[in-house]
Every structure is written in C-alpha cells, then in structure tokens.
C-alpha cells in the first residue's frame, strides 16, 4: 500500500514535471505564432495589402483615341470615325452554335471569315469579348439591331477608328495606320505603354513619325475581379487623353491638284513656301488608299498595290534618288560665278557636241546652239556650255555649292525614316567609295546632272526655294504647331558670297520660261501675277547609244522603262517670289513637254490661294 502510494506520488511527480515542460514549450510556441502574426499583419501589412489589391483589382485598357491631322486651313485630312463593331461574350450566349450561324446569315460572312471567328472564340476565355466584326456597314449594323431580340449575348458597339477622308491624296505624307505588331511594341516605348490588343499605330509617314504625340492615352477601367479573372464590379473609369492634333502646312486643294496632274503616272510634285519652308503640297504618284489598311488590308488589294509596276509603295518625293538632269544647271552656274571661274559674259560655242580625251559629249540639240552666254546657256539648257563650265569649275567646288543649297542631305532630318539623302559626288567620295580616281569626263557629265549625282525631288524643291528667296537658308517644315519647329541658328543665313550672282541665276531662269527659245516657254504665264521662272530637266536613265542618237526616236517610240525622266523646277511669282516647286515625272520623256505644263497649272492655283492662306493666318491672330 505504501509502495503503491509512493509509486503514485512518483507518477504524479513525473507527470507534473512533464506538464511543466510541456506548458513552457506551449508558451514559447504560442509566442512564436503571435510574433509571426504580428510580422505579417502589422509589420509587413503594406506589402500584403498591395499584393491583395493587385490580386483583386485588374485594369482594362481601352484603345486611345488617336490625334487628328488637319491641313493648313483646319480641314481634317486624317480623322476618326465611328465604326460599327459586333462583340459577343460567349458566356452570355445560350446556344453559341445557333448564334454564330445566325450571325453568319445576317452578316453574309464568307467561310473564311467564319472560320477565323470560330478560331478566335477558342482562344479566349468565355467571359472575354469576342470581336465578330470590327467594321460593319450601316446596313449590317442596323440588321443586327433589328434582330437583337433573338441574339442573346450580342453587343453592337460603336467604336473609334482611323479615317482618311481624302483617300489616296495624302498617303505619302501621312502614311497609314495598321495593327501594331511585336516589333512596333518593342521598339516604341509609348506604344508599349498604351498597347491594347487591336491597337492601330502609324506604319509609315507622319503617322509613324509623330506616333508618340498622336497615340494619346488609354481609357482605363478598373474592375474588382475574382480569382478566376471574372469582373465583379467596376471601381473606376479613368478617361484617357486624345492624341494631339497636328496641323500641317499643306493645302488640300494644291495637294489634290498634284494628285490629279500625276494621275496614272509615276512621279512626284512638291511645293514649298520659299521663306518659311512650309510644304504646301508633297505628292508621290501613284498613291493608294490608306483606308484599306485600317482594318487590315485584304490579300487581293495588297497584291494589286504591290504588283503595280509604277511602285505605289515607294515615296518618290523622299525616297527616289534621281539624276537631276538639267535642273542642276542653275547650281553649276551659280557655283562657277561664286567661285569667280566665269563671269556672266563667258561664252562658249556650241556645235552640238564636244570632245574630250577621245570621248564625245553631246548637246541635246544636234545642230548646236552656236555662241552661248551664261544666260542663254540656262535659258536654252545648252549642255555644251555646261560641259565647259563644269570642266573649268571642277567637281569639288560644284559639290560644295550644291551641298550648301541642300542637295545630298536629308531635307527633313530624321522626320521621315524612309528619306534618302541622294548623292553629291566629289573626288574624295569616289576615292573612298569606289577606290578610283576622279575623271575629268565625270566632272563634265556632273555639270549637266548626269553620272553619279543623285537628288530627291524634295531636295530639288528646297534648292529652288533657296535660289528664289535670294539665297538664304531655310528649313522645310510640314507641321504648323509651334513647339514642333526646331529653329536652327543658321536659319536665313546667306548661302551666297555675292547676292548679284543669285539675281543672275533667277534672271536666267526667268528667261528659260518667259522668253522665246526658253525651254519651258510654252508653259509660261504672261500675267505678272502668276508669272514664274523655272528650269527644265530631262534625266537619262540609260546611256544613249550612237545608233539611237541617229534614229532620234520620239518619246512614245521608246520602251517605257528606257524613257527619260522629266523634271521641272520653278518659283513664282517672278516679281516678289513666294513659292517654289519641283516636279518629276518618271519616264515622262522630256521636262519641257511633260513636267513644265504641270507647273503652269500649279502656279495658277497656288498663287490664287496665296491671299486666302495669308488671310487665314491673320484671322487666327484676330481671333486671339
């Protein structure tokens, strides 16, 4: 009994001791759990609160509204229109098969389109929006609205899309928009930031150059979502900003005329204000309708554009490197005068050809011009005269002057990524690029704008403008908005050594257009209000063989791709000049017959609209 009770006491001792140990352990563990709770809930509360919000709040970005393009007079040349779209939320549809066949009937979808929709449906979650069509016609849209009663889960939506009201007229200035692809997103920060599926961005032209300004910012919808991503309730709607509207310096009427003049031909027309450098019109022909690209171009349309032999996709104004032909002659003459190589009375006898080291160099006029002075050399575009001037001048001095007047470098800087810089050769260039020494014969043909020398139409326009304004440097611009205009310090600096020389060239160009024997005499306007001065150019695309020279074929007798390019540069009105232009017609045959007549029509319109342009500007100030 004693034994048993002592055993009992021992057992009690043991169990109580162990209870004590357990109790202390429990205390420590409890303390651990409480500190863990404290750590999570009090110390790291912020972190987890953010995580929780991240969990539960999801943002939906909507496509931003793109900024517009206006012409100088405020007409919308690239705007937005309400497109009718059809959205379906598969989850809300009772019988998807029925619905989709019904829609197929109503919208008259082709099998191809139909398959695309089915494929899209499989890729999305049932509560996400399926875009059945993003551009319905009004008839289709109203048809859907009439049948809404048996189309459960269908949402007709009005959304905003790009629209080019003047179709193909501005394509090469504005470019076009299309769905952003992976490359676009990766290469542009603001596209990345504003990206939503189906976002349309500028692919070429100003649409691309000013993407960052045009794109605007997304509307943002914040929703509370559950763990499966289903929207529970809308918490916030943040209106995005519409992209900036850009006003261009172009005049739609002139641009339209340029389109009309070059219809069915390949070529380029640009018109520039000689003082401000404002581009009045800039067209490359043929063009294409940018509206085709907005909702993705169809394969057929794309093939038509791509396979057009006149190459509508090439912007000839900026990308086309052409031999300037005789349009370079004013610069050759100017360079010679400036460098004191010749004086205006320097005379050369033209017999129709001249020889140098056994090579024969022909003048365009077989019979020759006889004795030719500087003024007549430009007026009649005598090649022999300029062979001689160039020979005396040398290519290095010539290239120096040409570069000063804007040839051989990009006119718009980095604005258009497609712009080419042309080529103004000199001896150094040839050595570096071709590893050969410069030949004197090459100097001679450079003097008539053939050989290595290459210019773009916009460069020729700038050159003309700078001759017309009395020889002062200008920077062409296409956007009116002030903040976009970088004003370089060398704007309006004189490009000449002696302003008399510029006058001589201007006078010679006047003669070329307005005097008998001038190459563009037939295109003159006698009314001093419209009177303009110009210089024709005919650029050979291929060396003329002796046989062909003897045949003396008419333009239409030569195969298209061997015909000469027709060029024309001009400025007007002659008294008090204001505008300069350059015209290029690919394989147009002859500058004086093909290109110069276009200038006549253009000047008529441009000068007629000059007052309007001026007054529009003034009115602006009055309004303020």
């Amino acid at each position, binding site marked *: 009994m004693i034994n048993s009770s002592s*055993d*009992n006491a*021992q*057992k*009690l001792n*043991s*169990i*109580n001791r*162990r*209870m004590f140990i*357990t*109790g202390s352990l*429990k205390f420590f*563990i*409890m303390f*651990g*759990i*409480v500190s*863990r*709770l*404290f750590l*999570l*809930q*009090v110390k*790291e*509360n912020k*972190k*987890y*609160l953010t*995580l*929780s919000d991240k*969990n*539960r709040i999801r943002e939906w970005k909507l496509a931003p509204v793109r900024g517009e393009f206006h012409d100088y007079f405020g007409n919308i040349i690239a705007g937005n229109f309400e497109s009718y779209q059809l959205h379906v939320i598969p989850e809300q549809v009772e019988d998807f098969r029925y619905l989709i066949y019904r829609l197929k009937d109503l919208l008259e979808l082709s099998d191809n389109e139909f398959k695309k929709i089915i494929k899209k449906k499989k890729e999305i979650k049932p509560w996400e929006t399926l875009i059945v069509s993003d551009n319905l016609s009004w008839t289709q849209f109203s048809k859907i609205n009439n049948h809404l009663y048996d189309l459960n889960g269908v949402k007709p939506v009005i959304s905003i899309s790009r629209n080019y009201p003047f179709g193909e007229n501005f394509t090469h200035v504005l470019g076009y928009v299309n769905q952003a692809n992976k490359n676009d997103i990766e290469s542009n920060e603001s596209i990345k930031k504003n990206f939503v599926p189906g976002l349309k961005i500028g692919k070429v032209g100003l649409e691309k150059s000013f993407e960052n300004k045009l794109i605007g910012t997304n509307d943002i919808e914040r929703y*509370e*979502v*559950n*763990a*499966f991503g289903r929207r*529970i309730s809308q918490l916030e709607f943040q209106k995005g900003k519409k992209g900036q509207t850009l006003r261009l310096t172009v005049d739609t009427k002139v641009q339209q005329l340029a389109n009309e003049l070059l219809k069915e031909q390949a070529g380029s027309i640009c018109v520039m204000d000689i003082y401000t450098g404002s581009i009045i019109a800039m067209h490359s022909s043929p063009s294409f309708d940018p509206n085709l690209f907005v909702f993705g171009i169809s394969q057929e349309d794309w093939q038509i554009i791509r396979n057009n032999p006149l190459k509508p996709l090439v912007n000839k104004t900026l990308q086309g490197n052409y031999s300037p032909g005789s349009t370079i002659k004013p610069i050759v003459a100017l360079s010679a005068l400036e460098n004191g190589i010749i004086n205006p009375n320097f005379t050369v006898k033209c017999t129709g050809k001249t020889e140098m080291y056994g090579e024969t160099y022909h003048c365009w006029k077989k019979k020759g011009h006889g004795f030719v002075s500087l003024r007549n050399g430009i007026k009649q575009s005598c090649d022999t005269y300029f062979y001689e001037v160039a020979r005396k001048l040398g290519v290095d001095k010539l290239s120096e002057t040409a570069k000063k007047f804007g040839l051989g470098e990009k006119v718009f800087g980095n604005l258009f990524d497609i712009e080419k810089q042309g080529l103004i050769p000199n001896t150094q260039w040839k050595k570096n690029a071709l590893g050969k020494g410069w030949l004197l014969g090459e100097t001679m043909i450079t003097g008539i704008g053939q050989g290595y020398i290459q210019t773009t139409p916009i460069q020729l326009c700038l050159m003309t403008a700078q001759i017309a304004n009395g020889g002062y440097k200008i920077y062409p611009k296409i956007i009116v908005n002030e903040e976009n205009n970088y004003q370089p310090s060398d704007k309006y600096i004189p490009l000449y050594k002696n302003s008399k020389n510029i006058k001589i060239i201007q006078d010679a160009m006047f003669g070329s257009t307005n005097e008998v024997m001038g190459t563009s005499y037939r295109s003159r306007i006698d009314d001093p209000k419209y009177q303009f001065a110009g210089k024709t150019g005919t650029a050979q695309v291929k060396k003329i063989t002796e046989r062909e020279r003897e045949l003396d074929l008419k333009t239409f007798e030569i195969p298209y791709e061997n015909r000469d390019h027709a060029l024309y540069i001009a400025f007007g009105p002659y008294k008090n000049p204001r505008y300069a232009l350059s015209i290029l017609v690919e394989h147009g045959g002859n500058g004086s017959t093909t290109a110069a007549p276009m200038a006549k029509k253009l000047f008529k319109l441009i000068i007629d609209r000059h007052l309007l342009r001026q007054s529009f500007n003034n009115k602006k100030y009055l309004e303020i």
Partner: protein
Amino acid sequence: MYQHTRLTSNQFNFFQKFRNFDYILLVCILLLGFISLATMYSTEGGKVLFHTKSHFIKLIVFTVMMLIFSFINIKFWFSIGYFSYFVVISLLVWTYLFGITSSGSKRWIDLYFINLQPSELMKIFIILCLAKYFHRMKLENVNSIYTILTSLIIIILPMGLVIVQPDLGTSVLIAISGIAVLWFAGINYKYFIYTILGFLILLPFIIAFLKPYQKLRVLTFLNPDRDPLGAGYQIIQSKIAVGSGGLFGKGFLKGTQSYLEFLPEKHTDFIFTLFSEEFGFVGSALLLIIYAIIIYRIVAIGASSRSYFAKIFCYSFGAAIFVYITINMSMVLGLLPIVGSPLPIMSYGGSSMLATMMGFGVVMSARVHSQQSIA
C-alpha cells in the same frame, strides 16, 4: 429510508454536477462556436448557405452531446478505453475496404445520415486507449521494452491504416496524440531524444519515399514562389490574406481575398486565414487567447483530477489540441508545409468537430467527477 437517501443524494449529485461544471471552458467553447459560425457565414459571402447551416446544426448537436458526455461518470470513459479503440480500428479497416473515395483518397464511410471520417475519431480514442493502458502501470514498468512496444503498436496500427487512405496529415496528428500520452506517462526522455535524432537522420530517406505531390508540398513550403500559380498558390494567397488584414482587419464580410475566391479551402483548413483577414491582428490574437484559455482549462482540470487516467487524458488532450492549432496556424502562416489539418471547432467538418467535442466531453466529465478515483 435508504432508498430515499439515495434518491436525494442522486438529485444532489445532479445539481452538484452542474455546479462542478467548468463554466469558463464551456463559455470559451460556445464563444468559439459562435466565432466559427460567423466566419462560416462570411465564407459564403454573407449568406446563410449550406456550410453555415450544416455547421450550425453540428455545433448544436455536438455541444449537447458534449454536455451529456460530461454527466457520464469518468469511470465509464475509463472502462470503454480499449473497446472504443478497437471499434475505431475496425471502422478504419471498414473505410479501407468500403470507404468513399473523394479527391483521390478513401477517408470516409457512409453512415447514411453522415459521412464519418474515422481517422478524426482516432485522434481522441488513441488518447483514451493509451491513458487507460498507462493508468495502472507502475512507473518502473513504463520504460520496459514490452510496454514501449505495446504502446508503439497501439500508435502505429491506426497510423498505418490512415496512411494508406492516403492521409499523411491526419496520421501524423494521430501519432502526435499518441506520443503526447507516452510523454506524460513518463517514458524516458532519452527515447524521445533518440527518436528525434533518428527521425532527422532518416529524413532524407523519408523524403525519398514521399509521393510526388507530397514532395512538391515540401519544396513549395521551402520556396512558395517556385510555382506561384500551382503548388505555391495556396500558401502565397493565404499569406496575402493574413498580411493584408493588418491590425484591425478589413472588417466582417469584407475580406476581399476570400470573397473573390482567391483563398483555397476556406471552409476547412484555411478558415483562420479568412478570420485573420477580416479581423486583423487584434482578432487573431483574441482567437488565440480563447484557444489558450481552453487549453489552460483543460490542463487545470487535469491537474485537479484525482485519478491518474483523467490527468493523463486531460494533459494529453490539451497537448494534442495545442498541436492541432499550432500545425494549422503555422501552415496558413507559411511556417510549415501544407498538411491537411483542421483548426479545432473553427474548421468545417463533422468528424473533426465530433472528435473534438467528444474530447471536451471527456474532459468535462473529468471535471465534474474530479473526486472520482478509479481503481
């Protein structure tokens, strides 16, 4: 006369029993029941739906059952110690043979009105059985090989039956319940130390034998961000829910994590997460205090009991409850790998509540009959 006295003494006994009730424990259990109901209500987005109703009914039924249990003499509980153990073992065998398979494991038996999970009951009855086994044993016999082997068999048998279900979590909890009894019974410290050392040495081999999903859980525990949408999802979301609760919580019915269904298993194992999200650190601490009081009362009842059986049962049950709570909370707070272990009373689940309430019933009975000695 004698008859009369017996009658009165019985009557007196009845009131005496009422007086002997541990009202603090009772109030705490009822409070816990109320909190669990409110939380259950919140898991259903503020509507009285299936889980809330079912939980409410179970609470009522099992609380009444607990009260009835407390009037039954502790001697009765002592007497059915072995018997009940074998009943539950046979239920486990039954489960193994004819159980209901759900989400890949065979844990339940269909009793027509309720799906019973015998492994949960085993958590209590193993304590009852072992407490009886050690009740009369002399201290010097406790550490004999025979005793240790017998008690180990008593523990390992149900463990094995539960592991094959498969349900590692519950089998570990059963083992812990059993080991708690061994500990209080006075098994030599060195065996515990050897076991822990042996376990640590064998750990790599055990891991090699784990099923792929179990390995994944361990790996996920070590680094939840390994697979945030897969295996790590539960623990990450649970931590976010608890952490975002802050000091005072997001408010009742305002827990976004659970309301928006980011929380997994919010009715059962992760119910504390939801509670913690809505009531914050203060609420969670309060809940912990309630649990602490319950455990303290259980231990106090054990201390005041005259019989060794009641003592050992109360201490072990208190330790077991503590371990269940600790494991559940450590799991949802990211301190332990995910093992299926419910939070006593709070979690939805009939068998678990039944077992816990039975345990409370026995403890309460020990209290009511604290002066009862068992021969």
